[in-house]
Structure formats: C-alpha cells, structure tokens
C-alpha cells in the first residue's frame, strides 16, 4: 500500500499514471497494440517530439517560442529547394540547418539583447518566416527531384523507421544535456530566477541566444524529416505546431513560469498527445467530437498530475 503510494506520488508518478493509462488503452482498444500501429503512432509524433526537446529548454528558461511551426515549414522548403537546385541532398540539409539556426539565432538575439518579450518576438518571426516560406515557393508545394531524399524518412534500421530513431536520439541527448550538463542546470537556474542567475555569473543573455539558436536547428531537423515524409516541401506545413508542442511540454510537467522541466515528462506528454489522436481514430470518433475529447484528455492529464503533486505536498 505505502509503496504503491510512494510510486504514484514520487518523481516518476506521471510516468506511472501514463503506464497505467497505456495498459488500459492497450487492453480495451482493438488494433492498438500492434507493431504496425505502434510504429505509426511513433511516426506521427516525430515532429512534435523532436521540437519538444528544445521547447522544453525554452520554457524552462522562462521563454516562449511560437515560431517553431513556421521554422519547420521554412527549413523543410529550403532543404528541398536547395537540394533540387544543387543536386546534392547534403547541400540541402546543410542549407536547412543554417536557415533554421539563423531564424533561432535572430529570435534569441532580439529577445536577449533588445529585451523584447519572447511571445511578441516569436509571434513576429512566426509570421515573417511563414511569409518567407510562401514567398520562396510562391505558395506552392515543391517536389523533391532526387528520390534519395525520401530515404531519410523511409529507410529503416532494425525494422524501425529512421525518424523514430532520430527522435529517440534527441530524447536521450537532450535528456542528458538537461540533467547532466552545466548548460542544462543554467537553463533551469535562469528559469528559476533570471536576475539571481545573472548575478551568480551565468551569462543569461548568451544562454538565451544559444537556446533559441538550438531550437531553430532542431526545428530544421524536424523540417527536413517532415519534407522527406511527405516527399515535398510545403509552405503550409506544421501550422499550429507551436501550441501542440507547448501543450506536450506542459502536460509533461514543464512549468511555464520557468525552472521546472524533465525529459521523461516531456516524452510522456508527447506520447499522450499522440495516443489521444491515435485512439480517437481507431475508435472512429467523429471529427467534431474529437475536439471535445482532445480537450478533455488534456484537462484530465494535468488534473491527475496536479492531484498527484498536491498529495505529494509539492507547492504550486
């Protein structure tokens, strides 16, 4: 009894709740726990999952990034256009990473140096970058010339598609960075109290620039994989991604007030979002009711987590 309580109320309580929910779903929803469906489920959360890694850092340091969706679309476009133009996939990848990183860097620079509110700055770059993507492609999807590009998403390793491996690697790397490096600790410190961190010698403004630049780079990776999956660069891709990613993070216990984040939580958050969609489609829930169910799941998940942490005596 007490050990059960300990398990539920401990640090990993969210994971336990999730595991229970997963088991229930697996037992009750037909076709859910099949290899095919699991792989499909994982592939459907690749974009959210990858971007959530750095969004976690962004939120943990008390910042906010609304431009991720646009950056994903833009860098996907760039990857396709550059590799079409140069005939080399590598050139396309490098161009995409450069562009994504540049968007993030500019975000960071404006936010950290000119001290402009992150919400407004990234809302602005969200529009600007989306505009660039539309202008560059004249609003049309750009097809990929070299079929080798598709292999980024289609190739498999040990039976599991590459994008899922990429996501898994990102989870591990960023989990490590958050918990085991000075960078991660400084991020959390900035989120906890930016002024105190600055006075303690943390170079807050360059940290913020780094975090945003990293966010941009990671968006570029997600953009390239997405373009490869849908075999074209689409200027309208990934609209609304920002809210999904932020929800996944918050679901996973990342505090919007900064200073609190955990990789396991974010992974669980991402999976909850993916499973909700997946199960609703498996159960054939009508489109309009899906809205309602999606909202309720979101509420329920945070509510459960809140009850748990309230019982554990942690203060909001």
């Amino acid at each position, binding site marked *: 009894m007490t050990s059960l309580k300990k398990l539920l109320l401990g640090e990993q309580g969210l994971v336990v709740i999730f595991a229970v929910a997963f088991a229930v779903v697996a037992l009750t929803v037909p076709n859910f726990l099949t290899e095919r*469906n699991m792989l*499909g489920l994982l592939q459907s959360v690749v974009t959210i999952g990858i971007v959530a890694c750095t969004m976690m850092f962004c939120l943990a340091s008390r910042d906010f990034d609304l431009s991720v969706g646009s950056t994903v679309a833009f860098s996907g476009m760039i990857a396709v256009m550059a590799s079409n133009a140069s005939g080399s996939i590598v050139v396309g990848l490098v161009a995409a990473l450069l562009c994504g990183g540049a968007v993030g860097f500019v975000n960071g620079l404006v936010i950290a140096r000119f001290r402009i509110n992150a919400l407004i700055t990234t809302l602005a770059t969200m529009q600007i970058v989306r505009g660039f993507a539309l202008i560059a492609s004249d*609003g*049309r*999807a750009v*097809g990929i010339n070299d079929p080798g590009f598709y292999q980024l998403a289609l190739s498999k390793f040990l039976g599991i598609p590459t994008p899922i491996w990429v996501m898994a690697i990102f989870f591990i790397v960023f989990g490590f960075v958050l918990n085991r490096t000075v960078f991660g600790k400084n991020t959390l410190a900035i989120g906890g109290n930016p002024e105190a961190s600055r006075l303690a010698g943390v170079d807050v403004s360059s940290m913020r620039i780094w975090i945003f630049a990293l966010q941009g780079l990671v968006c570029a990776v997600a953009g390239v994989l*997405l373009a490869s999956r849908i075999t074209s660069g689409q200027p309208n891709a990934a609209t609304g991604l920002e809210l999904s990613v932020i929800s996944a993070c918050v679901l996973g216990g990342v505090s919007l007030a900064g200073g609190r984040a955990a990789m396991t939580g974010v992974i669980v958050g991402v999976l909850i979002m993916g499973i909700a969609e*997946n199960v609703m489609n498996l159960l054939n829930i*009508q489109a309009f009711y899906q809205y309602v169910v999606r909202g309720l799941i979101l509420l329920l998940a945070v509510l459960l987590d809140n009850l748990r942490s309230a019982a554990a005596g942690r203060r909001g």
Partner: protein
Amino acid sequence: DVKIGFIVKQPEEPWFQDEWKFADVAAKEKGFTLVKIGAEDGEKVQSAIDNLGAQGAQGFIICTPDVKLGPGIVAKAAANDLKLMTVDDRLVNADGSPIEDVPHMGISATKIGEAVGQSIVDEIKKRGWDMKDVGAIRVSYDQLPTAVDRVEGALSVLKAAGFPEANIFDAPQAKTDTEAALNAATVVLNKNAGIKKWVAVGLNDEAVLGAVRASESVGIPADSMIGVGIGGADSAINEFKKPAPTGFFGTVIISPKRHGYETALNMYEWIANGKEPEKLTLTAGQIALRDNYEQVRKDLGIE
C-alpha cells in the same frame, strides 16, 4: 479609372494564387486596377469590403469563406455601392437557397467529387479488383462544408457502383495539411491490416497525398492504391513527375484560368460598359492522370 477587388478565402492556397494571377492578366489587358485581398473568415470579409469601398473600387469578385455569409456580403456590397460577383462558391440565403441575383461562376463541390469517384470506379474496374476486397480512405475535414460535399460526392459514385459501405473508413484530419492526413490515414491502414487494396479520396491533393504516403509507409505497393485528388496543383504534378508511378493515380483539375480571368473580365465589362454578366456560369473539372496531365493542363489554359 476602374478598380476591381478580388477577395479569396485562402490566399496561401495555390488555387487562389492562380485565380489572382489570371485576374491580373485580365487587368493588364483592359487596364484596370485589381485589388487582391485575402479574407479567411466572415469578419475579414466585412472589413475587406469596407476597405474596397474606401479605396473607391466599383465592384468586386469574391470566393467567400462560407456561403452562409451571403446576406451579409450582399448588404455590405450595397452599402458600399459595389457591384458583386462570386466565384467558386455560391452565396446562399439563411434558408440555404442560393442567392440568384448575384452573378456566379463556379463548379459545384459535389460535381467535382463525383468526377473523382467516377475515375476511381473506372480504375478499379480496369484493374479488375473486387470491390469487396478494397478499402476506401475518406480523408475528411468536416468543419469545412465544401470538403464534406466533395468527399461525399466521390463516395456516392463509389457506392452507386457497388462499393460496400462497410469498407469506407473515416480518417479525420486535424488540419488541412499533408502531415495531418498522413497521420490519420496511417491509423486507418493499420487498423485494417487485412485489407490489401485501397482507394483514397479527400478534400484536395494534399489530403489524398497524405493517404498515399501513409500507404507507402506501411508497405502497400503503389499498384494497390488508387488516390485521386482535387486541384491539380504542384503537389499533384510533383507526383506525376516522379520517376516511378505512385499510388497517387490522378487529380481532378479545375481551371483557375476561367475562374480568375473571366470573372475579372466580366466584372470589368459590367462596370465599364454596363454589360451585366450571366447569372450562372458553371465550369467543368477534368481528370488528369500521369500520362496526360500536361495535355489536360494545356487544354485548361494553365502554363
């Protein structure tokens, strides 16, 4: 000086970009000014019309975000003393009947859908599939009425041809992009792993493309998939340009040229010479396949 507005509901969509482009051609020919405004919802439409009025335009053409906006648009146009024509979607009254006073050029969503359905039925027969063994993915975006009309049109033809209703599966998109369609279609395919042959319909090329990508990702060969899209924009053409055929079988191309060029021209004639346009002009969509898309595009005056 003649100044004409051209309001569309989704300015980012290639389709509307093309309509604008062809309207521009007319503007250049006749020497009038064309004001292009995107208006994604009812409120934006209202301010766009006000804006046109303020600029001193004499009339405008609109593809409305929702046909029920009809009475509001008519009233607003009258208040600003603007001539009004609609394109693509026809305005309706509160009771759902079309507003017949407003000149309209378009093609009914149901008709386009039926063309999609017909080409799928033809292809199924040609490949000699048994309809009982075939699944249909209905990539749906039901909050958009046009989308419902299109997919329902396609499915009605399928059903009439004997396609079993039980084999039609709904894949609701959360958004209208390819990734959302891909994710939704993947679930359908995985859920029905027993079905080996598939067809897919959706609101546009991007939606069907998502279903085709999904079939590829779960290992369904290209010749076991028949996806027919709507629009004929670059996403579809890119598929046809791929070296090997994909499950993206064809697309119903509707001509933005007539819709853009002719409406603008008619409006100009109306304003400049008092020549009132036809109350209703219906255009046709044309199915384009991998081997004839270039010809179809030429016929429709694109490129």
